[in-house]
C-alpha cells in the first residue's frame, strides 16, 4: 500500500495528469461532477457527484458515425474519437459497482466497441467513504463503501491518502508515480454506517424468480400515480443504460448519435402501430422491474441497483427505488 500526505494531493493530480487525462469529482454539493483536472481544481467536499461516473464510459451523447448521401449513394464514415488513456479518480464504491453491471450489458456479444474502448483506456481510482449521506444504501446491496473495488482503491485518513492497487492497470498507475511512499492505512471507524437509516432494506421480495408476481402487484398504481415521467432518475442513475439512436441532418451530411434515453418517457416505446406501455404505470414499473427483477433474472441474481441514493435526492416527487422496495417488499411478506 502506498501513501501520500493530503497536502500533496495537487502534486499527485499534476503527476497523473502529466501522462493521461485525469477526472476528479469537483464542484458544490448537488452539482458536483467529474471534471477534467486542471491546475487549482479542488476535490469536491460533497460525498458524490450529481451525475454518476458512468458518464465517462457511456456518455450521454456520442457520435456513432456520419453518413454522406449523394444522389442514391450512401457513404458511411466511422469517425469515433480515438480513446485515450484516462484516470478516473474518486469513484465511490457504489459507482464502481455500476461498472460491473454495465459491463455485463455492453461487453457481452456483440461487444459495444465504443464502451469497450473507454473501459480499456480508463483506470478507476476509487475512494472509500467516510461520511455517508442518509440516502446511502449500498451496504444493503452488499457493497462495502469503506473498501471499494476499482483498479486502485484510495482512502483518506489522518492527513494521508492511502492507495492500494487492485489490478495490473492499477499497479501500473501507482508505479508511475514516484512521489508515493509506502504506508499502511489505519483501521477505519465504521460505526457511522451502522446508523444509516436504509441499511436494513429488505430485497428478498425481488429477484428473477418472482417475476409475474411482482409484475402484477397492485401497488404499482399508487407508486406510479404522481410520477412526472421525467428522466431525472434514469439520467442520474449509475446503472441505467437505455439509449436511443438519432440522426441529425446537418445540411452537409447526417450525423448518427447514440444518446441516453429513459424508459420513463412516454415516447420510449411508442410505435406507429401502438404503445405497449401506454401509461406511466407501465413505464414506471418497467424501470424498477428491470433493476430488481429482470436484470437479476439474467445475471445470477445481481440487482441493477448500487444504492448510491441519487434518485432519492433528485426525484422531483421523491419517488424512488427505496419506496418501491418497501411497498412491494411489504406485500411480499407472508
Amino acid at each position, binding site marked *: 500500500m502506498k501513501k501520500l500526505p493530503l497536502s500533496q494531493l495537487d502534486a499527485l493530480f499534476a503527476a497523473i495528469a502529466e501522462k493521461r487525462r485525469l477526472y476528479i469529482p469537483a464542484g458544490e454539493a448537488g452539482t458536483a461532477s467529474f471534471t477534467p483536472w486542471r491546475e487549482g481544481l479542488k476535490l469536491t467536499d460533497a460525498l458524490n457527484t450529481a451525475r454518476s461516473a458512468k458518464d465517462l464510459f457511456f456518455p450521454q451523447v456520442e457520435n*456513432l458515425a456520419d453518413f454522406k448521401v449523394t444522389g442514391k449513394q450512401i457513404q458511411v464514415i466511422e469517425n469515433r474519437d480515438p480513446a485515450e488513456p484516462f484516470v478516473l479518480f474518486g469513484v465511490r464504491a457504489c459507482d464502481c459497482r455500476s461498472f460491473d453491471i454495465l459491463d455485463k*450489458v455492453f461487453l457481452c456479444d456483440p461487444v459495444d*466497441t*465504443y464502451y469497450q474502448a473507454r473501459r480499456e483506456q480508463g483506470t478507476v481510482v476509487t475512494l472509500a467513504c467516510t461520511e455517508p449521506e442518509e440516502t446511502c444504501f449500498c451496504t444493503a446491496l452488499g457493497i462495502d463503501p469503506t473498501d471499494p473495488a476499482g483498479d486502485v482503491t484510495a482512502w483518506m485518513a489522518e492527513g494521508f491518502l492511502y492507495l492500494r492497487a487492485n489490478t495490473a492497470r492499477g499497479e501500473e498507475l501507482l508505479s508511475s508515480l514516484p512521489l508515493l511512499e509506502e504506508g499502511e492505512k489505519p483501521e477505519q471507524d465504521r460505526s457511522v454506517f451502522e446508523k444509516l437509516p436504509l441499511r436494513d432494506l429488505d430485497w428478498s421480495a425481488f429477484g428473477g424468480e418472482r417475476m409475474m408476481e411482482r409484475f402484477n402487484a397492485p401497488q404499482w398504481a399508487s407508486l406510479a400515480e404522481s410520477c412526472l415521467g421525467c428522466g431525472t432518475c434514469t439520467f442520474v442513475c449509475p446503472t441505467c443504460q*437505455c*439509449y436511443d*439512436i438519432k440522426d441529425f441532418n446537418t445540411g452537409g451530411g447526417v450525423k448518427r448519435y447514440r444518446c441516453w434515453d429513459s424508459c420513463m418517457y412516454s415516447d420510449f416505446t411508442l410505435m406507429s402501430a401502438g404503445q405497449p406501455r401506454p401509461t406511466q404505470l*407501465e413505464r414506471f414499473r418497467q424501470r424498477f422491474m*428491470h433493476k430488481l427483477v429482470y436484470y437479476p433474472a439474467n445475471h445470477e441474481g445481481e440487482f441493477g441497483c448500487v444504492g448510491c441514493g441519487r434518485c432519492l435526492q433528485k426525484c422531483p416527487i421523491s419517488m424512488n427505488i427505496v419506496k418501491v422496495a418497501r411497498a412491494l417488499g411489504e406485500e411480499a411478506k407472508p
Partner: protein
Amino acid sequence: MRREALIPQVVQVTDIRRDTPDVKTFRVVDLDGRKPFLHIPGQCAMLSMPGVGEALFSITSSPTNEDYLEFSIKKCGCVTDWLHAIEPGQQVTLRGPYGNGFPVDTDFAGKDLVFVAGGIGLAPLRSVINYVRCYRDRYGTVDIVYGSRSKADLVDYQEILDEWCSEPGISVHLTIDNPQPDWDGHVGFVPNFVKELGFDTGKTVVMCGPPIMIKFTLAGLMEQGFPRDQIYTTLELRMKCGLGRCGRCNIGDKYVCKDGPVFRLDQLDQLPDEY
C-alpha cells in the same frame, strides 16, 4: 478492431416489387452484388436511410436463396413511407441479422407444420415456408392458411399460386374477409377458417399476423386442444439497437430483438403481457 454492431453496411436495392397496394418487396445485395449476410428464417434486420430513420424488418427471403435478401414492407410510418418512394439503384444501410429465428432445424424437424398468416404477417413466414419447401423431406405435412382483407391485399399471391399451390404435400388455404366478384375461394376471417379446417392437434402451428387475428386463432386452437408448446408466433415491438440493450423491446427478462421475435406460446406465458 472488432466490427461495431451499431455501424451498418451500405447495401443496394436492386429490385422493388409491388405486392399489394401498400406492400412492396425490396431485394437488396451488398455493394459487391452479393447477399449481405446469412440468416435463419424468422430473423430480422435493421434497414435505414440516414436522416430518415432506422427500422427493423423481418427478412422475407429464405436462407436457401444465396443471391440476395428480400424484405416485404408495409407502408405505415416514416421509414416505410420513404422506402415506398424509392427506386431501384437506391442505396440503404443494413445491419443484422437479429433475433432467434424459427427453430427450423430443431423443434420443427419431422413435425407436421401449419402456418397461419394474416396480411403482412406472411412476410416472416414466407422465409420459413420456402426453407421448408427446400428441405421438404425433413418435415411432415405442410398446411398454409393465409388470409387478407381482399384479393389485392394478399402478399406474394402470384408466388403462392405458381409455386406453393402446385407443390405436392403442401396444402394452401387462402381466404379473404369479404366476397368479391373475381374470387371463388374461401371467404371469411382467418380464425374461423382455421377452426373449419380442423387441424390435428399433433401439428405444430406457426402464426403471424395482426394481434386480433392471433388472439382469436389462439382461442380457437385452445378450444381444439392444441398444447401451448406447439404454437409459435412472432412479436413486434419498437426496437432501436437490435442488440438487447437500448431497452425498448424489453419484456420481462427477454429482449424481443435478441431473444425473440419468435416465441413459443408457453414461453410467452412466462412473460408479462406488455406486447
